[in-house]
């Protein structure tokens, strides 16, 4: 829960107590507007500053200056509280120097005439200042980021080469993430297979993240404020996945008219949002449409490839304490082939969600969210039955301080999935694959009920503990299995710049498919629940030059897991893929992660992630490396402001090879032997170049050229050469 409509009488936003000094950057040109996201602590100091909007060189100038600002802290019912505030800094290009009789006041001047409205304008000393007013939301700090999480903001991901501006694509660069194949949107997270990683947007489960054909994510980037990856030990509010959690936070509603759009080689997209009824409500519409089908028809007339997605959100403040939100989003993908005038759908998938929620603010930092979600998923695969899932979910989440230094978070939810299927019209009923497919995904109703709670304990000024518990019960076709999941996380502040972070947890999940596909969830709880025990410990260090470094060691143990992709070796001879789909294995993953990070949206930004790990599987008493075990995985990205609104970036992706698994081709090997051979290592270089033009304070147009795998690198997997998978993108973006 991010934002609740402020009650003007209960919440007072922070105010600048000391007039800030912000210097117009020497390399700056024109006017600029920078929006910062400032975390102002209860003592009025700026604890954290991030750029939410804006470009160089102004962004760095504003960011650097903001760290030294002093505020009168926000208050709630008269008590100082920490607050996150969006703060606008407007730079106005100075006029030509006037003759000596002109003596303007060069000091920047904030405008605090409107609560929640904070703006600073700054000019070169020879210019006069003009205050710029813009309504900005004030968020009283609610959900703090849990320990042991990796995050990227959208502003950063925009600059990440190879991500094409998509926050969810940044996941592959995060520590603990092991790719299956370069460019493919499926990955292992600390040894957990793709089917065990859950995707959420604002707490709503999303069946998959990316469109087919190496397409973009199914959520328009402008909708996403931040993406968090929980590789393990995640908060109690997340459950029903035994691997990692990818959680996207939607951008908070805004009532000022704004939007952006883009046209690229393969698709176009747009998003616009505005307020109504004098700011009591907001409405957002966004979407993306691909015209790949038209383009492909020029080079491959027989192939159809199409995708599109949409997002819509309406918020309305019933009272200063109550907000209702209707949030709908969905995606559609189709791969087909046309031959002799007959269209055959090779793969089609779609999902839709409608989330209706009510947020109530009781005061005293106590909030309650109640939400109902309906959803529809469908997948069609040629020669197989069509699978559908109609979903209904009800959830509630309470947040309540119960004492000084004690914050209770609790919730409950029920989700019902109605799975149906249409038999394949033209298929051999004796085909083992058809039979297995139908048995794996039977028609039935599934249900899951869960309650959870955790307590954030500020045990001392330095120590924060978060013990939690989650209890779920899974029901499918008459089978019912409960699951109990304790969780605990801790953050200890050794010094101002050094923190120790621990996270431990148990997680359970019903049987899962190889990769997440709408409507394709194995039924009947066949084989029981999958389980994992996740542990991690690390340190977080603030380094000079706004750089942070995190080093973590982790260990995950998996029990009764589905991993058709990874639980294969030369010793599992005779096990076809069909058996692998339902086989259950034990697993283990352990290793070390390093994450050094300087915001990419700065003048010079970059990050380095490195994972050293080993993932193993045990099947039929045979223990072997996971078929997708990669000892070393590294990402290094650099983004640089070249000046004159040019930005360039590059990213190097490197990982060592997986174990060589000789395909058994269905044969039974009498005396299989484990091979120590590894496939060759792989690397690729992504490039990004951007030129931006600005019109006024808020309108901009940018030309962006980006290439994923500019080196045209090929990947070798078990004697098969893959690729090069190279995605070029040239496009124009604009915003206002």
């Amino acid at each position: 829960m991010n934002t609740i409509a402020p009650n003007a009488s209960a919440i007072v936003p922070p105010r600048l107590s000391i007039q800030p000094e912000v210097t117009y950057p020497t390399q700056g040109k024109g006017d600029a507007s920078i929006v910062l996201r400032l975390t102002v602590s209860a003592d009025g100091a700026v604890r954290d500053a991030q750029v939410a909007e804006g470009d160089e060189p102004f962004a760095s100038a504003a960011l650097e200056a903001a760290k030294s600002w002093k505020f009168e802290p926000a208050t709630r019912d008269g008590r100082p509280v920490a607050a996150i505030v969006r703060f606008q800094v407007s730079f106005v290009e100075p006029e030509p120097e006037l003759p000596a009789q002109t003596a303007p006041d060069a000091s920047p001047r904030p405008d605090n005439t409107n609560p929640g409205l904070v703006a600073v304008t700054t000019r070169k000393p020879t210019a006069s200042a003009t205050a710029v007013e813009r309504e900005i939301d004030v968020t009283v700090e609610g959900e703090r980021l849990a320990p042991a999480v990796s995050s990227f903001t959208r502003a950063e991901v925009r600059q990440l080469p190879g991500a094409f501006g998509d926050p969810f694509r940044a996941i592959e660069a995060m520590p603990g993430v092991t790719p299956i194949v370069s460019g493919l949107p499926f990955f292992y997270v600390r040894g957990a297979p793709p089917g065990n990683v859950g995707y959420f947007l604002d707490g709503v489960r999303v069946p998959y993240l990316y469109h087919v054909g190496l397409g973009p994510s199914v959520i328009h980037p402008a909708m996403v404020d931040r993406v968090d990856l929980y590789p393990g030990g995640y908060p109690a509010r997340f459950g029903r996945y035994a691997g990692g959690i990818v959680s996207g936070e939607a951008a908070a509603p805004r009532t000022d008219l704004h939007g952006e759009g883009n046209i690229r080689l393969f698709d176009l997209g747009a998003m616009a949002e505005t307020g109504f009824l004098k700011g009591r409500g907001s409405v957002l519409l966004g979407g993306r449409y691909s015209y790949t089908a038209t383009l492909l028809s020029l080079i491959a007339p027989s192939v159809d490839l199409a995708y599109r997605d949409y997002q819509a959100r309406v918020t309305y403040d019933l009272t200063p304490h109550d907000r209702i939100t209707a949030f709908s989003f969905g995606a559609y993908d189709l791969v087909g082939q046309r031959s002799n005038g007959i269209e055959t759908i090779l793969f089609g998938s779609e999902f839709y969600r409608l989330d209706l929620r009510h947020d109530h603010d009781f005061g005293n930092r106590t909030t309650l969210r109640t939400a109902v979600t309906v959803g529809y998923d469908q997948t069609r695969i040629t020669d197989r039955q069509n699978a559908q899932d109609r979903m209904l979910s009800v959830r509630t989440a309470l947040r309540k301080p119960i004492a000084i230094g004690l914050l209770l978070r609790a919730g409950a939810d029920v989700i019902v999935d109605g799975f149906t299927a249409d038999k394949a019209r033209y298929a051999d009923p004796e085909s083992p694959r058809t039979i297995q497919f139908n048995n794996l995904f039977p028609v039935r109703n599934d249900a899951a009920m869960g309650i959870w709670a955790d307590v954030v304990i500020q045990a001392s000024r330095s120590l924060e503990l978060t013990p939690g518990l989650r209890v779920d019960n899974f029901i499918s076709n008459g089978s019912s299995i409960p699951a109990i999941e304790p969780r605990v996380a801790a953050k200890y502040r050794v010094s101002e710049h050094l923190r120790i972070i621990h996270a431990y947890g148990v997680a359970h999940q019903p049987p899962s498919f190889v990769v997440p596909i709408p409507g394709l969830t194995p039924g009947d709880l066949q084989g029981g629940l999958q389980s994992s025990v996740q542990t991690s410990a690390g340190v977080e260090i603030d380094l000079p030059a706004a750089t942070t470094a995190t080093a973590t060691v982790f260990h995950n143990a998996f029990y009764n897991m589905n991993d058709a992709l990874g639980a294969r070796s030369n010793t599992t001879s005779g096990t076809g893929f069909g058996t692998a789909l339902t086989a259950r294995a034990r697993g283990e993953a352990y290793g070390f992660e390093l994450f050094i990070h300087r915001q990419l949206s700065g003048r010079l930004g970059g990050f380095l992630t490195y994972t050293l790990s080993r993932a193993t599987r045990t099947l039929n008493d045979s223990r072997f490396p996971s078929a997708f075990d990669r000892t070393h995985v590294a990402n290094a990205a650099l983004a640089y402001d070249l000046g004159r609104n040019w930005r360039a970036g590059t990213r190097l992706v490197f990982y060592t090879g997986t174990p060589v698994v000789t395909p058994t081709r269905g044969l039974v090997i009498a005396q299989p032997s484990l091979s120590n051979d590894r496939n060759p290592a792989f690397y690729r270089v992504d490039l990004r170049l951007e030129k931006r033009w600005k019109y006024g304070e808020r309108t901009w147009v940018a030309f962006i050229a980006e290439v994923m795998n500019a080196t045209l690198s090929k990947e070798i997997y078990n004697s098969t050469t893959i690729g090069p998978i190279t995605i070029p993108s040239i496009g124009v973006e604009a915003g206002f």
Partner: protein
Amino acid sequence: MSQHARKQVNTVALAILFVTGSCLPKDTRPPPAEVLVQAASDDAVQTGLTSDDGWHIVFSRYLVTLGQASINGDTCNAYAEGDYTRVLDMQQPSPQKVNLLYGLGTCQFSFALIHPREDSVIGAGVTADEALMMRTAGSDVYTSWTDQLAGINTYVVGSATKGSQSKHFAWPFRQDFYMQLCTVVTDAGPEQDLQLRQRESLSVELQVHGERLFQLGPLRRLFEPFAGADTSYGNNDGDVTLEELSRVPATVSGNLGGVTFVDGGIVIEPGALMAQAQFSSPDAGIPDAGPALPGARSPVAAPETLGDFLVYWLLPASISYQGLGICSHSPRRPSQRGQ
């Protein structure tokens, strides 16, 4: 329409969308033809045969794995193809189902003679142990041209007697074959095309001819060279093995690949049988078997031994299409389709 009514309609439409709605297009393909692929055996498999050189040959076991049938062509639309194989006891009452296909248009038929996999359907009369035996990897001199282990696609067990002589054989054939360009000779000439029309039901019959395993020339079924492999080139223990057959030398003569056996062997005259065994050739559009390992001999080269001839030519040619029709066959590498 009033604003209230409009809201109601929109609400209902939204609900409908989420309850029943879908943007994925329906299956609008016209109804296809149904093609039932079956396998049958000749009398030789069922009751045995007498060779032209006086040996009485009887099969006690004749297992064949067939499947992965497909239809293709420029004007062919395949709706569903055979994605599995079936282990067949060819001594069971015929015919037996192999695969069921659906398609429309003018199509060419192909299939595979290939070892069974985990999900292969076990036909009547075949035991699970036999299927497992055929799935168990091994190698022999005929599959050594690659470094891959191979299963068994055909398992033939039998005996031959002539007077007081008696020989026994148990042959596990490991070289898989891809059979395509299946052609039947009609009054109008060779015909490769299957005409598949909406809602029609067709059947394609594959016939296993046991006698062809010994057809060392047109209308010449001989067992003496096989017996000689054990007697003169083997250990004379009464078992004729494939390995012993690989020791019986042969040379190729004639434009149509007639085989001459030296050192007391037998002359195979070139004829229609050899013409039926068409080898992989870029000109024919048949998938090339690919290169053999260094030092190993390519299976598409001319036979050098009786064993070569049996494994690479006689076995695949023993399966006919639609009666007396033939299919071009090429040795199958593990990386080819369906693996």
